[in-house]
Every structure is written in structure tokens, then in C-alpha cells.
């Protein structure tokens, strides 16, 4: 077991910088997801931790060792690759035993370790097969087995579930969480799938453009996104983000956008009069009555709930979520209110910072600007 520390880690490929001055402190035994869209630097970060890429500057520490100059094989890490990277000519047993063999573990001890790992992952029946004779899910388990067999300090997982079908993915998510609980090892998990990150992680590191956007537990990332990017990236369906303007009214602030005008209460000291963004999660749009007028434009039925997209009078669109029995027809005029206590205010720009006070209290005073 070991903690993992990135200190001001930067990685450039020629003129392109993939990771900018990353600081990340992963505690012992923690399950951390690196989450972000393609090209956000999450895989590069993981590969630097694995020793497959070398940081341009900064230090990476595993346990109490700075590992910058230590080759991958000596870092005491194990990695599960997106493509599984099983050795095609070796049997399942030989694949799992390989890391032990390369570390000089004797044949008898290897067999015992392989048998134990195979039992843990229900691979005992498959030990003699070659990787090409296995299904995707089985190959995935073999890759996990190869990582588990030598009990490393840190597990690195690079989108290990992305090649599985949806049902198997759901199953493997549970298995991985269970495995982490049982082993108690530090795990760093790269994914672009927010559902995986939200359901499995102790903490999520949201990255974009090579910059760490937020590093917090899943609930906090969802309820208090650090900036506009995190707000837009986390949540399905996504948070409605409306551009407008802030103005100071004594000790509190007011947000106005076409179709919406609301008091947002006190904000933190980064708030400035001028451009800003209001964010509302679909579950915080209360349809039925309220000061805001809108028209139902789209209704998406998912079975247990309906997602509705509502056009506001000012041309803005708002996404709402209602339990399945409630439904509206397209074109219907509705009144609605926004749960102001749960509304998010961000500064201008695509990475505008969160302006809400940590307590996140806003005055529940909503009204349509048109009224």
C-alpha cells in the first residue's frame, strides 16, 4: 500500500503540453478516478505514474520514493490496459504467472499464486486456454489477474471496462469495487465514463485540457462542481447552463438572463458584477407552478422518469427531470420554478469558477423577467 503524490508534474510532447503542473495527493488505499473527455491528459497522467512516459518537469512519488527515474518494472505497480494486452501465445496461467516469473519467483510458488488468483477471479477452469479462446469479459479478468497476482503497491487501470458490453460493464464495476474493498490497495482508474467514476471512486480527479479541474468525492463533484466545465461534464442529462449577468444588490447578488431573473443571495469574493453563468440540475427544475413560463419542446421517456426540455420565453432551453407518471405533451405551456438553493453560479468563460458560498444558500426568489 502506498500513497501517490504528483507535485507540479508537467508533460509536453514537443510544443504540445498534455499535462500542466499537476498536483494530486492520493492517499493510501484510496480508489481515485481520473475523469475527463478525450485528450484531457488523464491517460498521460496514468502513463507517467506507470513509468511509460516521463514527466517534463515535476516529481511523482509512490510511497516514500520519488519514481521519476525508476523503470516501470521496479515501481511496484501493476496496470490493466484498455486492450488487456495479454500475451497471445501464452496460456491464461502463463499470462498471470509472467510478472512473478520475471521477478524470479520459483515455479512452485508461481503455481500456488496463479491458482489463488484464478480462484479469486473465477478463472480456474480457463487456465489452460489461450487469450483468443476467451470472451472479452474473461480476457478482462485475466488482465486483472496478471495485475493482482503479485500484490503491488498501486493498481493502475486504464479504461479497463470500455471494451465490454453495457451489462458486463455494470457487473465488472461492482466486482472492481468489491475487489478494492477486499484488497484495500491504492487504485488509480482512468475513465471517460462519469458513471464509472461516480459509482466506484472514493475521489474523482476531473481533468480537462491537461489541467486538474476538481479533486473531490463524487457527491461533492456533483453537488458543488468547482467550475463551469465540471458542472457541464458531470451529470446525465447535463446541467442546464444559462449565460447572463450578475449585479450586486447590497450584500447579495442578482442573476439576470433572458426569461429568468433571480436573487442568488451571497456569493464568494470571486464574484464580480458582469457576465456569469447560472447552472441548474434537471432535478431542481420544478415543473407545474412557479414564476417562470416555458413551453415543452421535447419529452424523452426513459421508463422510470421523463426528461423534458423546456423552451423559456427568452429563448433559453432548460432540461428538467420528472418521475414517469408525470408527462407533458409537446407544445404545452407550463409554469415552473428553479430550486434556488440548489442553483449554481459560475464566473464567465468555459472554466468560470464556482461563485456560490460553500454553504450554497441562495434566496428562493424566482421570477420571470418578462413579468
Amino acid at each position, binding site marked *: 500500500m502506498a500513497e501517490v503524490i504528483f507535485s507540479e508534474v508537467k508533460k509536453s510532447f514537443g510544443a504540445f503540453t498534455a499535462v500542466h503542473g499537476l498536483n494530486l495527493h492520493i492517499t493510501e488505499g484510496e480508489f481515485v478516478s481520473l475523469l475527463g473527455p478525450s485528450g484531457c491528459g488523464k491517460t498521460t497522467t496514468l502513463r507517467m505514474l506507470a513509468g511509460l512516459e516521463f514527466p517534463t518537469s515535476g516529481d511523482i512519488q509512490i510511497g516514500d520514493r520519488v519514481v521519476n527515474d525508476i*523503470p516501470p518494472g521496479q515501481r511496484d505497480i501493476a496496470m490493466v490496459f484498455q486492450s488487456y494486452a495479454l500475451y497471445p501465445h501464452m496460456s491464461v496461467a502463463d499470462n498471470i504467472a*509472467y510478472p512473478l516469473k*520475471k521477478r524470479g519467483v520459483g515455479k512452485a510458488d508461481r503455481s500456488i499464486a496463479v491458482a489463488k488468483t484464478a480462484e479469486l477471479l473465477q478463472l480456474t477452469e480457463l487456465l489452460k486456454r489461450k487469450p483468443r479462446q476467451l470472451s472479452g469479459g474473461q480476457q478482462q479478468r485475466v488482465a486483472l489477474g496478471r495485475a493482482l497476482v503479485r500484490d503491488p503497491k498501486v493498481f493502475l487501470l486504464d479504461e479497463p471496462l470500455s471494451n465490454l458490453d453495457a451489462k458486463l460493464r455494470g457487473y465488472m464495476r461492482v466486482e472492481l469495487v468489491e475487489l478494492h474493498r477486499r484488497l484495500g490497495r491504492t487504485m488509480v482508474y482512468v475513465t471517460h465514463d462519469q458513471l464509472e467514476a461516480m459509482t466506484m471512486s472514493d475521489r474523482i480527479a476531473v481533468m480537462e485540457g491537461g489541467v486538474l479541474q476538481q479533486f473531490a468525492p463524487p457527491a461533492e463533484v456533483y453537488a458543488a462542481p468547482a467550475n463551469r466545465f465540471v458542472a457541464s461534464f458531470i451529470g446525465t442529462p447535463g446541467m442546464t447552463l444559462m449565460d447572463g449577468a450578475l449585479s450586486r444588490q447590497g450584500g447579495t447578488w442578482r442573476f439576470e438572463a433572458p426569461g429568468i431573473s433571480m436573487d442568488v443571495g451571497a456569493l464568494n469574493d470571486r464574484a464580480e458584477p458582469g457576465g456569469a453563468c447560472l447552472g441548474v440540475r434537471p432535478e431542481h427544475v420544478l415543473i407545474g407552478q412557479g414564476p417562470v413560463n416555458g413551453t415543452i419542446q421535447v419529452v424523452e421517456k426513459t421508463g422510470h422518469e421523463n426528461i423534458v426540455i423546456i423552451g423559456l420565453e427568452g429563448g433559453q432551453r432548460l432540461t428538467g427531470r420528472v418521475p414517469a407518471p408525470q408527462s407533458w405533451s409537446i407544445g404545452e405551456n407550463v409554469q415552473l420554478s428553479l430550486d434556488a438553493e440548489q442553483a449554481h453560479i459560475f464566473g464567465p468563460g468555459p472554466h468560470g469558477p464556482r461563485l456560490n458560498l460553500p454553504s450554497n444558500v441562495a434566496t428562493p426568489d424566482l421570477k420571470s423577467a418578462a413579468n
Partner: protein
Amino acid sequence: MSSSNTLLERRYAALGLMLIAPTVLVFCAVIIYPLVSAIYLSFFNIFTPTLEGEWVGLSNYTELLQTGQFWSALGNTLIWTIGTLSLQIIFGIAMALVLHQNIWFRSLARSLILFPYFISTVVAVLVWKWLFNDLYGIMNHLLISAGIIDFPMDFLGTMPNAMVSVILVGAWKYFPFVVIAVLARLQSIPDALYEAAKIDGAGPIARFFDVTLPQLREVLVVIILLRAIWDFKEFDLIFLLTGGGPINDTQTLPLLVYQEAFALNDMGRASAYAVVMMAIMLVFMIVYIRRTRSEGGS
């Protein structure tokens, strides 16, 4: 299948036959006919210029099995094939590994390496004969300047120099084929395998034996079989370089066939040699076909 064929399926089948018919005809004319006629001729005692002669049955075969020349030619063919093929494979893999690295002159080197393979055999042999020449050849000049030898060496006129020279020139001429095939395979080995091996603690040598070589296995089997067939029947390179000499010490089976057919004018016996050669190569071919078929099936 045939009973349930629809009209459309039958039409497609007829079209298919029509489209492959020209190929089949050409194949018959240039492969089947010479093959059958060689087998036929091998039962006669034929004077080449007139192509006339008498039926001798299997005596061409019984004679060839009893003559020392056939066995020594077969021995030479095996030495030449195994020698040159081994060098082609070793240098081919080594060069492919070098060209697979991220070196700055990689594109240029990849083009240049094909040069021996593309150059005409006659030109290549002429150049090598100059290099090997004992009066003005650069090989002797370099060896004498370096103090390795005191007098010029006869590269092509004495044994074992002549066989070694032929094997070396063959390796030089044909190793680019191995380079191309191995390089193509190397480029398709996923990087993740090497990365996984690195993390599993494998050093560069272990990675070569545990990742690279097993991945090359299939392509190497095909290359070795193909090159073995081609080297076994190699004629022009050896004929032009040594003509089979000194005496008959580099005379391989194809050269012997040529000698029987056009120098000794015994087309019947030449055909018998050729048929025996074909039987030997058939073994390689059957292995090759089984190999490629099982690969396609997996």
C-alpha cells in the same frame, strides 16, 4: 446447396466460371503443360537439339540415383539453401528491428535496404565479381591493406571460398525480403504488449524473446518456407557467379538440370532431375499450404 440454387445463384456461378476461365487457361498452358511434359520427357532418352529419342522407362531415375553427381548437387543445394537462408533470416530480423526503431534516417534507410532485392541479378553478380576479383577487387585490396592476408584470395575459384561467397551474395541479395515481411509484422505488434511486459518487469532481451519473437513466429514460418523454396531452385545467381565451379563444388540441382539439358544435350535425364527436384520442393509446398490454410482458418 446445388438443389436449392436459385436462378440468380446459377447465373452468378456461370459468371464466376467465365471470369476465371482465362486464368485457368493460362495456368494450364504455362504450368500444367510444362509439368506434364517434363514428367513425360523424363521417361525418354532425348537428344536436346532434335527432341527425338527412345522410351527408356524409369532408367533415367535409377541412373540418377546411382550417380555421384546428383547426390553431390543435392548436397550443394542443401548447403547453399540452409546457409543463405539462415543468414537472410538472421540479418533480416536484425535489420528489421533496427529499422523499427525511431531513428532519424528511418525512411531513407527503409528505402535503401530494398536496393539489393530490386537490383537485377546479373548486375548484382557483375558488381560482386568485381569486388571479389583477385587482381583489382576491393575485397582483396581491403584485406591486404588491413594486414589480414598477404596475398590476394581467390574468392570464387577455390573451396570453401566459392560456396561461402555464393552464400554471402545470396544472403545480401535476398535478405531485404525478410526485412520487409518482418518489419510489416513488427509494426502491427501492439505497443501495449511491450508496455505490459515492461510493467511486468521484463528487460529488453526478455521483451524480444517473450513478446517480439512469438509474435513473429507465424510470419517467420511463411518466410522460411517461401525463401527455402526460392533458394532451393535458385539458378541465375549461382550460375553467373561461379557457373557451378570450381569443378562442380557449387553446382546445385538447377545448375545440374541446365548442364544435362543444354550442355550434355540429354533432355530426358534433365527432366528426371527436374522432376525429382520438384518432388523435394513439394514437401516444402505442402507444409506451406497447410500452414497458410490453418492461419486463415484461425
